[in-house]
């Protein structure tokens, strides 16, 4: 009995190690490669023989334009997230707390749009934006991004609002608050963590967007970070600058990884919202 129990524990530890390795190994490889010198970039040792920050220094070179791309990403993802949260908070409150006709239909429609193939709206919007001169503008990236960020925000917030005890609002309304006051003074403060988590999840979704940003821009100064990194060119045309691509990849990913590590419990709750009912 004890030997089987020992075996089980051992097997479980092996499983945990396997899962952690599976998840982290490619990411670790990106980090290690970004720290190698250009001369030993094809080295396959697990630890770089000599750590070099040359790849990172190259990114901060203004000629590369990577800082501008990061700023573009921040602007596009930031505005998209703010707009989506503003609209979604009200809608999600109605979904979670009010009774009205076609509620299920409305929620189904909103969720359905988040599963919509982005390319189906990018094609007609590219033509429209070309005609009205919106190519290489922030709004040309923000407007299409709303199509998948807004439903995500509504769905997440609806789940968070549903989890909050109704008694608090009811007590406030018995004490003479209107529904609006109860929403402002009771719901918003309590829901702040949920709204914050939704903000992180929607921000990550908007930050990671590639297809829209690729299609709607052709000027390097307006490209977002993922598009700019994919277009990095090396010293010669046939040489892909893997070192600086990996360094840029680390820079783009690390803020997200930090957010994920700090708020992991909330993010998991937000991501699995609605999956287990």
């Amino acid at each position, binding site marked *: 009995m004890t030997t089987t129990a020992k075996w089980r524990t051992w097997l479980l530890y092996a499983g*945990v190690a396997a899962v952690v390795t599976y998840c982290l190994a*490619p*990411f670790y490889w990106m980090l290690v490669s970004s720290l190698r010198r250009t001369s030993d970039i094809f080295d396959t040792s697990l630890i770089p023989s000599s750590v070099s920050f040359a790849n990172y220094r190259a990114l901060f070179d203004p000629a590369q334009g990577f800082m501008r791309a990061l700023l573009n990403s921040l602007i596009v993802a930031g505005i998209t997230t703010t707009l989506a949260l503003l609209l979604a908070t009200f809608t999600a409150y109605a979904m979670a707390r009010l009774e009205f*006709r076609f509620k299920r239909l409305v929620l189904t429609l909103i969720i359905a749009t988040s599963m919509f193939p982005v390319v189906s709206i990018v094609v007609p919007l590219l033509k429209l934006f070309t005609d009205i001169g919106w190519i290489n503008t922030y709004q040309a990236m923000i407007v299409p991004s709303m199509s998948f960020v807004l439903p995500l925000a509504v769905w997440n917030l609806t789940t968070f609002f549903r989890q909050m005890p109704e008694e608090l609002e009811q007590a406030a*309304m018995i004490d003479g608050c209107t529904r609006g006051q109860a929403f402002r003074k009771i719901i918003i403060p309590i829901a702040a963590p949920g709204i914050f988590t939704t903000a992180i999840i929607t921000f990550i979704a908007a930050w990671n967007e590639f297809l829209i940003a690729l299609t709607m821009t052709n000027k390097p100064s307006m490209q977002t970070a993922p598009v700019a990194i994919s277009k990095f060119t090396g010293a010669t045309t046939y040489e892909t600058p893997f070192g600086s691509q990996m360094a840029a990849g680390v820079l783009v990913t690390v803020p997200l990884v930090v957010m994920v590590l700090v708020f992991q419990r909330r993010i998991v709750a937000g991501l699995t919202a609605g999956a*287990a009912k």
Partner: protein
Amino acid sequence: MVDTEIPPGTAADGPAGAAGGRAGQPAAPVKGGRRAWATAASGRTAALLVSPTLLVLTIVVLYPTIMALRESLYGPKGLDPKTGFITTTEPFVGLQNYADIFGAAGDRFWNAFWNTTFFTVVTVGLETLIGVTMALIMHRAFSGRALIRASILIPWAVPTAISGLLWRWIFNSNGVANAILGHQVLWTTEGFHAKVAVIIAEVWKTSPFIGLLVLAGLQVIPKEVYEAARIDGAGPLGQFRRITLPLVKPALLVAVLFRCLDALRMFDLPYLLIGAQKNSVETLSMLAQNEASNVRFGPAAAYAVILFLYVFLIALGFVRLLGADVVGDDGSPRKNKSNSKRRRAPGPDSAEVSA
């Protein structure tokens, strides 16, 4: 609790919710005037709160879809065969774009169609297998749970575009994949190995997501069910097949549906890992984007419409045939599928994964 003072709809559990659903109809005499008034008012508030979102979605989703439908019936600008002048407007060509897709341009379309389908079936299949295994390990693991949860979120947080470049580096001819294999494979050139590269990269990034959703499903299964099964003599395999799988099925179905719809629109990964206009990995999204960026809007729109219909049919199939419940509990009473959902304790915070 003074339940008479609470506006109806807030505590809708049971027939009151159904009454709220018909708020717009003349007040039912039995319910009393006050209640009907409150429900109508809440309907107005709801309309006010929901309409901005619906308006935005109409502008960014519905309107472009209708535009795509219309656009797919028009051909490219070019020489007018009658006058010989260059036309400034696009000529109406009817269903010609669709006829071309299934005729003249058929090879490229069917190739992209089968690539998309192949990627979806294989990646979602592998992801489900790996994801469920991960979830079972995480569910059992008591030490190291925080570590495992943190690391499982990393592949999800890495932008797909960046992961495409990362795997392009790993699959480089002198890269680490070949070093481990001890064998030179030109992964990023045309051929079946390119498909394998895309599948590995995609599965790496998204299996943890299925793992998380399944874990959430596992954590709401009460321990007593397993104890009862053990007493009745069920082995570990029997327990997994007869208890775990059926009870996790709703969560798993939603996860698989979402993954399928996401895989059907795959673009970033094959585009960056292998490249544009590569037959081995070109998906429908890549085909439509390629045509649009070459200013061939008519065919591009036709491809977009076909992809949209394909996604729609798959989603419909999941919801109708397999009963995937995407929307979840909206507070109104269930009509038909009550027994399978109500069996678990429907705590409002059951969606939260406890640590």
